[in-house]
């Protein structure tokens, strides 16, 4: 053990994988379109190509190419106003094309359950081998050879493999179940888990590839906070995705575990990472999560109804390196963690007081001492067409109302508070990913080379969805400029 100290956010990566063919395998499309023989035909007019997904402004913000203030000034709807000069790679990560991602999935499958068509596998291998971060030279497992179309058909018809159909209707591959009689190891469930592992692994490799990044061998603990339940019939959700990802990424001296709290998982995980570093137990901790295949196309009916593209066509992943104070990186304030406690109550005012007023007061601060708040950052262009409202805006207005209640601002200043201390939602509706984390890359830049002094991140989790409690969850964290580097 080292003496410990103040934990800092040393690096952040945020990645997307554009997967239009997998949209039909999202939970909602699967349930709604199960009566159709060819759901992909129904969806096809609304599925975007990679160029459109790459030039989509929210995705460019996600990987750090577009600043949140510039984003707020852009014309809407965003899907009709492509970003000129949009690029695949950004300061925080990338937007990986589908065929390459299929290769990454196969390379992450240690049990040879995912079979890719021979041609698809060949093209995916060639593209992935040239990748700057997860290329052949990164030491990752190879993309396995593909198999014949006849063998894929046999797996589907005789062994209950899940077919993967391309947007053009061609068979791309098939995912075998992991057991004949286990509902937690079906091809569908395993593909969801594999997609989570692959996107988390991509994010971790991006994190480790940064100039000056922590060495693979110095990562000692990994915390996964994704929501996928990896396990089997006897221990559904048993885990441990963190260790699986660390293994794949070559972090040979790491161990880890999964932290679960629905969409609030990332905030719990960051808090725990800060505590591990602060206590001196581990110097270098990585918090990561992969994407949610089940949430692809979650609001697709609204998109179809409004004749717009299904914008929930990307899987997301992130990784955060938490380490000891380096005198430069933004500080994670462990003395001002906001907690929605069991007895906090569920009334909106009680919740925001627990998550904002109480921790800020403990640090001698008010809401006006925070330059930017990051909370639920779901892209409203995904949710509003389906009648789910503008989640970030509603939450920012609730927060501004708290500032009015606390007599920090006048009622007439609510809109200004929301505009200057908030931001438009830009995250794909990927549950735990959308919960505050997507701004962390922007915040890190703003708190080091930019003008920000203090930011606050708040995650909320819908625990009641699991039917074990009526409670929701919430954790808030303050991330601020390093005083030594100020």
């Amino acid at each position, binding site marked *: 053990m080292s003496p410990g100290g103040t934990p800092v956010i040393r690096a952040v990566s945020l990645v997307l994988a554009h997967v239009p063919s997998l949209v039909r395998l999202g939970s909602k499309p699967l349930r709604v379109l199960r009566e159709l023989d060819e759901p992909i035909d129904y969806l096809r007019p609304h599925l975007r190509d990679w160029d459109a997904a790459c030039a989509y402004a929210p995705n460019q913000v996600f990987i750090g190419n577009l600043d949140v203030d510039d984003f707020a000034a852009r014309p809407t709807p965003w899907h009709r106003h492509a970003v000129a000069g949009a690029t695949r790679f950004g300061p925080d990560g990338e937007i990986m094309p589908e065929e390459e991602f299929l290769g990454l999935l196969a390379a992450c499958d240690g049990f040879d359950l995912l079979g890719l068509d021979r041609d698809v596998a060949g093209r995916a291998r060639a593209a992935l081998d040239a990748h700057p971060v997860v290329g052949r030279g990164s030491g990752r497992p190879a993309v396995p050879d593909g198999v014949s179309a006849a063998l894929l058909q046999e797996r589907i018809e005789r062994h209950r493999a899940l077919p993967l159909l391309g947007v053009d209707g061609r068979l791309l591959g098939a995912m075998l179940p992991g057991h004949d009689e286990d509902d937690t190891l079906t091809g569908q469930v395993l593909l969801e888990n594999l997609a989570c592992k692959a996107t988390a692994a991509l994010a971790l490799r991006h994190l480790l590839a940064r100039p000056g990044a922590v060495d693979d061998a110095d990562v000692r603990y990994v915390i996964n906070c994704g929501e996928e339940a990896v396990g089997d019939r006897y221990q559904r959700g048993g885990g441990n995705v963190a260790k699986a990802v660390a293994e794949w990424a070559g972090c040979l001296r790491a161990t880890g575990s999964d932290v679960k709290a629905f969409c609030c998982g990332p905030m719990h995980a960051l808090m725990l990472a800060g505590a591990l570093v602060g206590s001196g137990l581990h110097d270098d901790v990585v918090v990561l999560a992969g994407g949610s295949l089940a949430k692809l196309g979650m609001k697709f009916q609204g998109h179809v109804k409004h004749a717009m593209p299904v914008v929930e066509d990307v899987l997301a992943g992130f990784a955060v390196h938490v380490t000891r104070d380096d005198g430069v990186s933004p500080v994670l304030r462990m003395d001002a963690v906001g907690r929605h406690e069991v007895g906090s109550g569920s009334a909106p005012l009680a919740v925001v007081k627990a998550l904002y007023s109480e921790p800020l007061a403990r640090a001698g601060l008010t809401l006006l001492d925070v330059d930017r708040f990051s909370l639920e950052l779901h892209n409203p262009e995904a949710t509003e067409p389906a009648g789910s409202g503008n989640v970030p805006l509603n939450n920012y207005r609730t927060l501004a109302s708290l500032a009015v209640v606390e007599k920090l601002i006048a009622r007439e200043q609510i809109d200004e508070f929301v505009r200057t201390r908030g931001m438009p939602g830009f995250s794909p509706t990927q549950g735990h990913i959308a919960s505050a984390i997507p701004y962390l890359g922007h915040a890190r830049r703003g708190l080091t080379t930019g003008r920000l002094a203090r930011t606050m991140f708040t995650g909320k989790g819908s625990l*009641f969805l699991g039917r074990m409690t009526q409670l*929701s969850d919430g954790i808030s964290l303050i991330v601020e400029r390093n005083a030594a580097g100020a």
Partner: protein
Amino acid sequence: MRRVEREEHMELRGKKVIALGERDGVPGPALAECATRAGAEVVLTLTACYV
């Protein structure tokens, strides 16, 4: 459903209530608490999450 204006009163005493809330709005338990205090019998409490 009839729109209830701000100045109108809804008599809940003796009524059965389904408290259907939303996480980012007013959650089910908060609605249930209000309904109970107003004299209603809450028969079901649910909270939805739209994201």
